[in-house]
């Protein structure tokens, strides 16, 4: 399963949500499908995309928030699972693409390649709904159910360690950041 195929399969469903991604491959892939003002790409600060999603979800409880995380980033901030589980915002969906690799920096294998079980960690941290998906159909169903559901959900999606040819896009970081905030403020009017 390729991450970009996963993202493409749910792309239309991202329209009405606030989407926060981690840096690197997935940010470039989502932009290649078409940037939208409701997408924010955290192009550094590994581990904090989920914390950002949590802050958004706690401040805007009626707003669907989707975090697109990765195994390398999540492993840098496992405590985020316990913090999210503690407050369990109902409309927060946490998707973790697990390619068992720090692909963007040369493909070093992460601990999920040697047996660390992110689904188990998420479940034991208290995330109410957790699943692991391994094919496109399962992925699409799990994400669609989570978006329509009313419970904090973490979905571990096992994908191949393949990414785009380039990571830098023509969207400036600050442009993205100001556009994202302005978009959220416009929703309140």
């Amino acid at each position, binding site marked *: 399963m390729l991450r970009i195929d996963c993202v493409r399969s749910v792309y239309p469903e991202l329209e009405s949500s*606030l989407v*926060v991604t981690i840096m690197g491959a997935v940010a470039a892939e989502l932009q290649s499908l078409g940037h939208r003002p409701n997408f*924010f790409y*955290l*192009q*550094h*600060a590994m*581990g*904090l*995309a*989920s*914390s*950002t*999603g*949590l*802050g*958004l*979800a*706690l*401040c*805007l409880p009626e707003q669907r928030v989707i975090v697109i995380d990765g195994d390398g980033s999540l492993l840098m*901030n496992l*405590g*985020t699972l*316990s*913090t999210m589980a*503690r*407050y369990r915002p109902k409309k927060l969906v946490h998707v973790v693409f697990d390619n068992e690799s720090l692909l963007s920096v040369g493909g070093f294998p992460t601990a999920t390649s040697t047996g660390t079980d992110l689904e188990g960690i998420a479940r034991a941290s208290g995330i109410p709904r957790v699943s692991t998906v391994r094919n496109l159909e399962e992925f699409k169903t799990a994400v669609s159910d989570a978006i329509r559901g009313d419970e904090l959900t973490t979905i571990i999606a096992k994908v191949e360690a393949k990414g785009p040819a380039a990571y830098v896009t023509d969207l400036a*970081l*600050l442009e993205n*950041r100001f556009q*994202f*905030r302005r978009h*959220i*403020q416009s929703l*309140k009017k």
Partner: protein
Amino acid sequence: MPVSSNNSKLIYDALKECDIRLVSALPETWLVHLIRMADDDPEMILVRLAKEEEGVGVSAGAHFAGVKSAMLMQNHGFLASINGIVSFAHLYKIPLLMLISYRGTFGERDPWQTQGGNVTEPVLRALGIPHFFLDGIETVKKRIRQAQTLAESSLQPVALLLTRDLMWEE
């Protein structure tokens, strides 16, 4: 416990006057009253963290949502947050109001706090983070308001160091 309840209340009320609606925190002795006040306040969103760096992300999310926030942490928590501060708050121009209990300075009895006390101000300076002290009851309200104003206008992290003189009574 000789942590000043009255002065904690002064600080908390000043945060409320600045329209702070979300506080992230990790417990530390000097912060216990402040955290309890946030917990007891139905108007405040209190986010108890596993590690202080998460608070940078939480505050960024709050900022995007249009909610003013503050981070309560010990100076060791500040030291543990540096990558988040640099590669999120500085990189993306996110306002952070950081209230940092300044442990390990004059009067510190806990040996384990002393090294952090030595490096807090040099690290703040190295990071270019504007910082000031909360050290007297007369200036608490004004300094918190000024710090918050600067964080919002400059879109960057600003630190207030909570001193022993203000936080500790004995």
